Every structure is written in structure tokens, then in C-alpha cells.
């Protein structure tokens, strides 16, 4: 038995992987996430609105999702907050755009370079130099402008507030956002799946992933070449908490046939373990994977349904779910932007006036972030936060083991024969250590 420690690059933050080898196979794996920044403690004792500024700082790549979970939790605690259709639409739009930029960056910056390390010659994908690598960064930044149009800036804006949003915009702004989204759509069709929209949609109808071209095809071919199409499976239990109609529906899948609804009172978080700064979270006592695979499977994405049927929750399927979700998100964003025109005259923000000192209550906010289900819980007493609690997507996927079960990502690495494969499987969860510990 040999123990190997690997420090992971190309993840959000720092993560360490500890592999226990026996007869050339991984017998056990531990994911170590270093100590936290104490954001929950920083919030205690502050006026509740401060959470809108501080919680996005949990994470530089999904800070917006934190803002959305936070504002929902605050609204829940305040009670009787009504939102205009305009505010609702804009919140959904910016949340989804954050996921889009995440997925694009993640695939080109974090996933593809692993194949170079496996010995593949992929000049276009080479960090700092490759044409596609640079193009991905520029397309992601273009998408992000949509958030900035409505939210002022990205990263770290705080434009969602109880009762709505702070910005007021024109139909020209909406048109510009639509133009930016079209550019992402163009990139998806030309570079990622390599075909015109009609061809893609006809494949999508039956989930015929075999017909996809472009970088997705390249990725699939590489998976088969290196034997990654069936490895990296975990418990097969999938969970989604947030909802953005129609591309994200909440629910859970226990690994058997049926899709079930979600009961959030069955979510429990317990303290971590001696080896990781992360906590662990269970649904109904069981570990669940959250993220694009869960989301797209539960929302009935035809590609993901077929892929999952053929290869389960493998490395390849997990990565492809994230990539194919870009389409689902982009087309939903387009629809929502288009319908925004008719609500442009609505108020951006309607706050039922209450003195902050009068506000006492508890609230929960659940949204989907790029990596999966994100939950904020807040307790407010006389306008001041007495407790703030965050369960991040990465806690679901990367959290440590309990007495009964290994962590989701830990389980997925057992049995692998190549340490780079183990890193890749771990990376397929879109590792975010800054979120995990917060």
C-alpha cells in the first residue's frame, strides 16, 4: 500500500488529493480542502443587508449565485415580499449567464489541458497560447457583460435586493444583452458542437450525442481513447434544489427508476472530518451528487438521459452534461430576455417599507449555481443577523466521508489506475475549494 499526495492545479482555489494505492489501483481517496475564511462568522452581528455584499465574496466564479441565494433567504425572512416580473426575469437571466461563463471557462481552461498532460498534442487548447483557449476566455467575458448590464459589474455585484433589483434599464440594454447571448450561442454551435442550429436541434430531439461534432466530438473521442467513458462513477444519486423554468427542475433521483420531488427538510449538514476543512451534507442520510449532470438528467435533457442510460454517471457523462447545459441555458436566457421587453415599465424594486429594526425572522434561499444546489439560511433579529449558514454545491460533491459513506467525489475515484485520471475525475465535479470551505 502506497499513499500519494497531489496538489491540484486548475481548480477554484486549493485542493489536495490523497490517494491510497494497492496493486496498481486506487483503493481509497481523500479530498482535502484547506481551512476556511470564516464568512459565516463575519456576517453574525451585522445589519442583514450586508449579507448581500459579503456572501458573493464566498466565490469569485459563482458569487452571483450566492447573491441570489442570499436575497431569497432575506426575502423569506422578511416575509410578504412581492417581486415584479421584470425583477424576476432579470435575476434568472444573470444567474444563468454566470453558469454559462463558468461552463465555458471550465471546459477549456480546466478540463482540456488534462489531455495534454496525458500526452495528447492539442495545440489549440494549450494554456496561455492556444487559439481556442483564448477564444473561450473572450467568449466567456462577452457573456459576462450581460450580468454587468443589469448588475453593474461582475465579479461581485450586489444588485439584487429584497423586493427586486437596483438597476433600471432600457430596451436598448435588453437588445444589447440579446446580441451578446447570440454570440455565445454562435460559439456553442460553431466550436463546441460544430454544426448549424437545425442539425443540432434534430440530434437533440433523440439525444443522438453520437452525431455531435466540434470540440464535443473531440472530447468524446479522447474519452474513448483513454478509457474514460465508463470510469468515475459515484453513487448515481442525483439532486437538484433550485428551479429555473424550463431548463432546471428541482428533484432527486435515488439511482433506481423514479424521479422524486425534493423535501428540503431532509437535508442535513454535519461537521466535516479531521482531514478536510469541508463539512458534509446528506439527503435523507445519503450522499448525493449535485450539478449539471443532476440538473440536466432531472430536467429531461434528451442527450443526458441517453448518455446516462448508456454510461451512468461517468467522467464522460458528467463533463458532457456541463457542456450541453450551455445550450439549455443560452436558449432559456434568450427567451427570458425576449419576454423582458414587455415588462420594462414595471418597477425594478418594490420594498414594503419596514424599518430594519422591526425585522425578525428566519429564511431559506435555494438556487442552482454552476456546480449545483446552493442553500443559504439566515436568522435575523431586529434587523441584525444572528446566524448565517451556507451549504455550497461543492460541499455535496467534495465533502468528506461519514461513518457509512465516502464523499461523492471520493467514491468516484476508487479503482482507477492512473493518477491523472483520478485528478480528471475529481475535476469533473468542477472543484471549487473556495466555496467548499467559505
Amino acid at each position, binding site marked *: 500500500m502506497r499513499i500519494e499526495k497531489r*496538489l491540484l*492545479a*486548475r*481548480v*477554484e*482555489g486549493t485542493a489536495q488529493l490523497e490517494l491510497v494505492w494497492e496493486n496498481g489501483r486506487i483503493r481509497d481517496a481523500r479530498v482535502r480542502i484547506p481551512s476556511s*475564511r*470564516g464568512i459565516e*462568522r*463575519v456576517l453574525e452581528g*451585522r*445589519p442583514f*443587508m*450586508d449579507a*448581500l*455584499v459579503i456572501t458573493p*465574496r464566498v*466565490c*469569485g*466564479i459563482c*458569487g452571483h449565485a450566492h447573491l441570489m441565494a442570499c436575497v431569497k433567504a432575506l426575502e423569506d425572512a422578511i416575509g410578504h415580499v412581492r417581486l415584479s416580473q421584470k425583477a424576476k426575469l432579470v435575476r434568472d437571466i444573470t444567474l444563468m449567464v454566470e453558469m454559462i461563463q463558468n461552463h465555458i471557462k471550465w471546459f477549456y*481552461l*480546466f478540463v482540456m489541458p488534462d489531455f*495534454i498532460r496525458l500526452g495528447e498534442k492539442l495545440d489549440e487548447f*494549450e*494554456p*496561455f*497560447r492556444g487559439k481556442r483557449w*483564448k477564444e473561450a*476566455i*473572450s467568449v*466567456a*467575458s462577452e457573456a*459576462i*457583460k450581460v*450580468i*454587468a*448590464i443589469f*448588475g*453593474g*459589474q*461582475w*465579479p*461581485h*455585484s*450586489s*444588485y439584487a*435586493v429584497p*423586493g*427586486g*433589483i*437596483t*438597476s*433600471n434599464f432600457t430596451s436598448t440594454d435588453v437588445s444589447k444583452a440579446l446580441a451578446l447571448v447570440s454570440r455565445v450561442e454562435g460559439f456553442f454551435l460553431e466550436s463546441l458542437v460544430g454544426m448549424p442550429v437545425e442539425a443540432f436541434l434534430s440530434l437533440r430531439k433523440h439525444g443522438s450525442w453520437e452525431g455531435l461534432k466540434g470540440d464535443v466530438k473531440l472530447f468524446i473521442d479522447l474519452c474513448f481513447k483513454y478509457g474514460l467513458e465508463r470510469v468515475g462513477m459515484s453513487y448515481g444519486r442525483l439532486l437538484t434544489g433550485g428551479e429555473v423554468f424550463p431548463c432546471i427542475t428541482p428533484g432527486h433521483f435515488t439511482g433506481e427508476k423514479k424521479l422524486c420531488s425534493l423535501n428540503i427538510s431532509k437535508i442535513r449538514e454535519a461537521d466535516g472530518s479531521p482531514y478536510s476543512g469541508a463539512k458534509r451534507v446528506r439527503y435523507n442520510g445519503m450522499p448525493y451528487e449535485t450539478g449539471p449532470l443532476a440538473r440536466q438528467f432531472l430536467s429531461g435533457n434528451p442527450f443526458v438521459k441517453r448518455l446516462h442510460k448508456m454510461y451512468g454517471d461517468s467522467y464522460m457523462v458528467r463533463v458532457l452534461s456541463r457542456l450541453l447545459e450551455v445550450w439549455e441555458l443560452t436558449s432559456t436566457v434568450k427567451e427570458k430576455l425576449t419576454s423582458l421587453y414587455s415588462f420594462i415599465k414595471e*418597477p*425594478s*424594486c*418594490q*420594498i414594503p417599507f419596514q424599518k430594519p429594526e422591526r425585522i425578525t425572522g428566519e429564511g431559506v434561499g435555494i438556487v442552482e449555481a454552476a456546480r449545483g444546489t446552493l442553500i443559504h439560511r439566515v436568522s435575523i433579529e431586529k434587523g441584525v443577523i444572528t446566524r448565517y449558514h451556507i451549504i455550497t454545491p461543492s460541499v455535496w460533491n467534495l465533502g468528506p466521508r461519514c461513518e457509512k459513506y465516502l464523499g461523492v467525489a471520493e467514491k468516484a475515484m476508487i479503482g482507477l489506475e492512473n493518477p491523472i485520471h483520478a485528478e480528471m475525475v475529481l475535476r469533473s465535479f468542477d472543484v471549487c475549494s*473556495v466555496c467548499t470551505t467559505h
Partner: protein
Amino acid sequence: MNILWIQRLSCCGNTHSLLNCETFDSLLREVSFLFHPSLSAEGEEEVVEDVLKGKLKVDILLVEGAVKVDDERIKELCRMADYVMAVGSCASYGNIPALKDDSVCGLQYRFKEKGGLLGSDFVSKGGLPVINVSGCPAHPEWTAGVIRSLSRGIKPELDSWGRPKEFYSSLTHWGCTRNEYFEWKIEPESLGSKKGCLFYNYGCRGPLTYSSCNVILWNGVNSKTRAGTPCFGCTEFDFPRAGLFETKQFAGLPAELPIGVSKRGYIMLSGIAKVFAPERLKLED
């Protein structure tokens, strides 16, 4: 120019902010990254070893994230580099990670106090103290701008907080589209209004914060205050203060007045301004 990027206690926001730099592609042609934790294919350890052994030369070391007061590794690296940049307010002043943890600080400050990890006298090989590109996160054009200057042999002039004057000598308030409302002392009816200045009741720190957010817009399109969100003063050592959406009042006056404005002047001018404010500004459309 060889660049080495190291992260400590951070959210990675400064990295993602820099990726939004509109001329990132050309920046990559001007300088070369020895290592970046999110971008490099290979691991960190070897590169850092080579740097410490003197096999690799670092021209600019960029640190993202607050540091522990006993982080010898970073100290050593700072001694090897020609210039040291703290990217973001965590690396500059400690920021959120330092709030509830005494063992955490910025490279050359801990909030207001000079010293930090490296000590107040630290000067890098190239003859500058730590260059604080503060901000939560640092604006991509500020970070890229400083890198470009250094790579052309231009040493940025720093203000008393270690920040390059070029980006931090004017206030957020400059260029804000709500300035006219500020001048005539018109408050917005509620958040979500295009009109009205956020200084009076929503805690805007624009007149008290050195940053160029309304001059060099974010993502090339907008800023917080233009989008109706108050400035939270994220480039200053005391970010995040408590009560970020509130304007503390003292006897009917904002407890803190815009930088350089006397209390007497403020009282006189604001009284007059309110009375003579043009009607067109008071109407919501």
C-alpha cells in the same frame, strides 16, 4: 517579463476579474506566466522550487488573497521578485479573511496598520514597496495596466496606501451618472430608481472612495452606482464596513462627508441646493 501568480486565502475573484480584461490576449503576448494556479497545466511546486533556487527569474510576483502572518513561503518569493503586486483588497489589506482571524493579514498592511506579512519597510528588488491593486475584486484594467507599465520599465507612482495613483487618485464619484442628483441633493425614492443619488440614504461611498470605477467602467459597460447599487468602498482598507446600505446620520447630516468638504460648507450648500433643485430632476419617469 516573467509573471508568477500565487493564491492564498481568496475567492479567486481577482483571477476571474483579470480574465475579463478586454486586451487579455495581447497581455499574454507581452508577458509570460511562469505559473497561474487556475490556468497552468502543470503543478505549482516545481515552479516555486525553481524560483527559490534562483533557476527561474520572477519579474513580477502577483499575490491574490490574504496571507497568514507566518507564511514564510510568500515572504521568500517576495524577496526573489523584482516587483510585488497585491491583487485585490485581501492581499492588500487582509479584508474579509482577516476580519475574524488575527493570524491573517495583507502583504504590507493589516487593514489600516502598515506592516502586514512583509513589514512596513519592505521594498522589492526593483525598489518599490508592495503595489496594492486594491478592490474587491481588482478591476482588470488596473491590474493589467500596472503589469504593462512595469514591463515597459515605468514605475507606477504610489499613494499613501501603496496604490498606483493613476487609478486611485480620483473618487468613485467621478463620472457617476448620478452626480447631478448629488449636487442638488436629490435622493432616490427607492432602490431601483434610475434617478437620485445614493449618498444620502443608501450608504454610497462614492465621494469617500478612491477608485476609477465610473471612469474605466466594469466589463466595459457599467458600474455599481450606474446600476443603482451604492459603492461599498471596496478599494479602501476598511472594506467591508458594517451597514453597507445605510448612510449613518448625525444630527440630520451624513456622519461622514465627502472627502475634502467642510461641515459648514456642506450645510450651506446643501440647503441652497435642495431649494433650487431643477424640477426636471425631481420627476421619476
